[in-house]
């Protein structure tokens, strides 16, 4: 019960990951994204070591398909995993194991892979992809946000007892090796996708201020002063 998208912005080469799920704190289980290397995200029944192992192999120069093959060889329960892998050029592949809970599946396109399990149906993936492709000129974080909203609006997750709310969600975007450009999370909320949109919009107001006060602290205004400039907009 999760739906996610991994993607690369062809304009900026930034890599990003968007995820939402019924489980709590999904963003705390997303180690597999690194600028200049690639992305791996394992979901459904998660083998926690998978994503970092995949990054090591991508860093060594293996293709996403070769990485997937080796993850399969390394894992007796590979058929219970759902995995998407992308290299730094945007080449992607995905695997939806036969042991994942229905409906589950993935869609791999040029510079993205959308994948999910315990979904209302294949139309949820179509909603994710449609959201992602709707405004290709936007910043990657907003395209990922639109993808999650598209999946939610297409019906999202449906388990044995009916619709399951999104209780956690996260978006990560990387353009440098040592920190994320965007790293926003909602760990426990009855409408996590809507809350993530609120957090992302608020973060974008502060993004440049936070970055610049670290780069040139000698020139930085206080946060109180900055908040006042927001109020005067």
């Amino acid at each position, binding site marked *: 019960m999760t739906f996610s998208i991994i993607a690369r912005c062809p304009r900026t080469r930034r890599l990003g990951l968007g995820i939402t799920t019924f*489980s709590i704190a999904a963003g705390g289980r997303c180690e597999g994204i690194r600028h200049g290397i690639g992305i791996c995200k394992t979901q459904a029944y998660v083998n926690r070591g998978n994503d970092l192992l995949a990054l090591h192999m991508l860093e060594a120069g293996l293709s996403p398909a070769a990485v997937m093959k080796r993850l399969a060889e390394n894992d007796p329960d590979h058929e219970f995993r759902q995995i998407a892998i992308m290299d730094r050029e945007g080449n992607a592949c995905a695997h939806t194991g036969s042991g994942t809970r229905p409906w589950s599946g993935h869609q791999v396109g040029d510079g993205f892979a959308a994948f999910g399990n315990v979904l209302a149906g294949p139309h949820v993936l179509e909603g994710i992809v449609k959201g992602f492709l709707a405004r290709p000129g936007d910043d990657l974080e907003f395209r990922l946000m639109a993808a999650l909203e598209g999946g939610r609006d297409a019906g999202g997750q449906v388990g044995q007892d009916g619709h399951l709310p999104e209780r956690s969600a996260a978006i990560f975007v990387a353009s440098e090796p040592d920190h994320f450009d965007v790293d926003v999370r909602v760990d426990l909320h009855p409408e996590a996708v809507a809350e993530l949109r609120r957090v992302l919009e608020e973060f974008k107001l502060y993004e440049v201020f936070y970055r610049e006060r670290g780069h040139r602290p000698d020139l930085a205004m206080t*946060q109180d002063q900055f908040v006042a400039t927001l109020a005067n907009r």
Partner: protein
Amino acid sequence: MTYTILGRCARTGRLGIGIATFSITVGRYAHSAKAMVGVTVSQAFANENNNQIALRLLDQGFGARATLEHLKSNDAYYTYRQIGVIDRTGAAAAYTGPGVRGWCGEVVGENYIATGNGLVGRHVVEAIAKGFLAERDADLEHRLLMGLEYGRDAGGQGTVDRHKAERSAALLVYSRDPYPDIDLRVDLHETAVEELRAVWAEYKKYEAYYRHRGEHPRGALGQEAFMATLKAAE
């Protein structure tokens, strides 16, 4: 304006950080621990690359003090930074530059650093240390939360007549794995420390289940069925 507790559990060697601040999404600055290596933080006018540099230096074998000196010599604006480093032995080193604003400083002990800026006063970091040391046999994540809660209750950020809310908070603990045991966040909230405790309390119910279903997917309960067992146990 931020307050933070870095801690190492002397019993288990687990390493972690608890952080709370007026800024939003502070967890961005808390990807700052590594199993068997150390834990660090760079705050105030944060150099966003410092955490990973520090973890690499610690991984190479430098101790906390040498790592801190490396960070200072690598940074033209280090006098605006507030930095804490604990290495795998529990040795701790901290620095607060003269350019950091508001009341700022730290309490440093073996296995912990309580550090903050823009605080009501020195008693806040003293309270954080006291909270961390209050239950030495408890799990590290609980001790880190206690540190944040004592800091909040001592007045936290701002001045005596003008309190600054904690709008974001984060809790991160590493044990033996290359990924964290606990990685919880509150990115935008009016009372982020309370909310972080609530998220942690809820997460604790699921922690073993989430781990078990990944390690043993064959026959694992669906999450709805697991939640029914939680409800039955209430």
